[in-house]
């Protein structure tokens, strides 16, 4: 089943001054259960593509369909609700709410969904166990390492049972050990729980773990390689 379809997506920054075509006609289909890396040189449009797919930014041309919904037609507030229900985000940094503990961070989106307290708690603990942080549940982000913070972010992104998870350079700030660890967790969740992951990266070790690699060059899809 397709979870994301983009058709001829164009995104232009600074249309009035010096226009930058960050995306220049991107056609892409992502199916359920994929473990896909978006790669390409700096400035090639990876972040822009993830933002457009994630409903954080609107394309100037083309269509974006997410889970059968035309997200372009949604109002800003509707889009916030849509993201809350359908998309999990892992950013490069500033993922977590600093005043909340790991457990509270994971519960947070479920709280926004008005899930009952007991369910929130149980799911948060289950997810934190899944990312190997059962002993850090009551720690605040400042008390966690970068890798641990990104694992909490993955658990947080999974909490609302989204259609897929978008991760923009999730390992950019991590050392190689934490990178490997985070990738292990993501790959396992992908295999065992059929969670769809789409992540951008510069890191060859991360690219090597992907099962599909989409390469962007100058805002266009240059290669799209599916590995066995």
């Amino acid at each position, binding site marked *: 089943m397709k979870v994301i379809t983009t058709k001829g997506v164009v995104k232009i920054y600074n249309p009035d001054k010096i226009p930058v075509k960050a995306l220049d006609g991107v056609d892409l289909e992502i199916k359920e259960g994929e473990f896909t890396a978006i790669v390409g040189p700096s400035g090639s449009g990876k972040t822009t593509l993830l*933002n457009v797919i*994630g409903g*954080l*930014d609107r394309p100037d041309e083309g269509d974006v369909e997410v889970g059968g919904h035309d997200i372009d037609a949604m109002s*800003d*507030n509707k889009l*916030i*609700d849509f*993201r*809350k*229900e359908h998309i999990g*985000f892992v*950013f490069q940094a*500033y*993922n977590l*709410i*600093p*005043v*909340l503990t790991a457990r*509270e961070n994971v*519960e*947070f*989106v479920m*709280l*926004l*969904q008005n899930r009952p307290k007991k369910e929130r708690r149980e799911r948060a603990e289950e997810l934190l166990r899944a990312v190997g942080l059962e002993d850090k549940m009551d720690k605040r982000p400042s008390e966690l390492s970068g890798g641990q913070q990104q694992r909490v972010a993955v658990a*947080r*992104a999974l909490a*609302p049972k989204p259609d897929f998870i978008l991760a923009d350079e999730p390992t950019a700030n991590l050392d190689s050990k934490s990178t490997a660890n985070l990738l292990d967790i993501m790959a396992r969740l992908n295999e065992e729980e059929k969670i769809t992951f789409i992540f951008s990266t510069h890191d060859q070790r991360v690219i090597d773990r992907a099962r599909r690699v989409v390469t962007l060059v100058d805002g266009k899809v240059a290669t799209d390689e599916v590995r066995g």
Partner: protein
Amino acid sequence: MIPIMAWRNIWRSKTRSLVVIGAISVGIWAALSLTGFATGMMKSYVNNAVQNIVSHIQVHQPEFLDEYEVKYNIPDALAVEQAIRAEPGIKAVSVRSVAGGMVSSSQGARGVRIKGVIPEEEARVNALDENVVEGEYLSDKGRNPILVSGDLAQKLNVKVRSKVVLNFQDRGGSITAAAFRIVGIFDTGNNPFDLSHVFVRRSDLNNLLIPATDSSLTADALTHEIAIMVEDIRNVDTIANKLGAEFPGLKVQTYREISPDLELYEGQIKNVSLIYLTVILLALVFGIINTMLMAVLERIKELGMLMAIGMNKLRVFSMIVLESILLGLVAIPVGLFLGYITIDYVGKNGIDMSIYAQSLENYGMSPIIYFELDPGVYLQVAVGVFLTAVLASIYPALKAIRLKPVEALRTI
């Protein structure tokens, strides 16, 4: 969880939050203390005026009040007086005869109202005896004794034992003059009153007011004014209404009706406290806006992330408003407590304003002010500060929800 977040957020910048909480508390304290001070002054003025001058209730023949003509005395005064004294809840009664006239010495003359009083009764109603600062109070001894105020004595250049002459019309309309000897100097603390009143014995005044040819009235039956003190000031209106019903032909007035300035002053206090409060709240608004704006601006990335993961605008808005409210809710009890102990302390011990006493006395106030506060003001201040906190957070909260998640996340 959002209230918990809001609460923890305000403690992220401890110093900044403590400063704004301190400012709000001090503002509340100042609003309460200033209002307490103004109320204390007002009460002091009203009490002085009531106790020394107007008394709680006065009874007159209605026409007397128009021109203060001596022919408009209270009919059947003895019976009326008896009936009033029999009324429950009444502490003291003084019957007076009153004439408008002139007091003169060799050095000058002034228009005054001459009050003929029964000394012991007058002392019980308005403590005139205690206000005698020099010489003696009126008594049965001697011929034609008179009390004048220090202020008037100075104007006339007279002192105790000096002679003054009173001129006034008697009930027949002829001008009468009589010499009086000053036995004492009084000072009520209210200059305008002191300058325009002199006190003599009622029997002396009445003998002069009733012409020899007039046999319709005896000296002890000529009364223009009955001044009444009640036991409990809160019953003034009830008792006045009752007397009014009992004597439909007479004008019964409470101190508020006699001295509308007192009522005005009492009423003004509410406005005064509102003005203090408004000024202080206006200052606080800017402090809170500034604090909350800083709190929003230094969290742009985080707010962008929150909106990216699904926190909608209403919730972000509420969180910012709630943070401001929480700052207020911490500050309000502190400020109320500081205000309360200040008002309680100065309410019991008073604050000595002697340095300004001269000007205060000109307005009929005592030099020691005891703070006093209507309990409703605490609520008024608390609600005012609460609303201010809400109001002041609206602009920062709008700023927060106008952020676009992508741009906010990209901000360095």
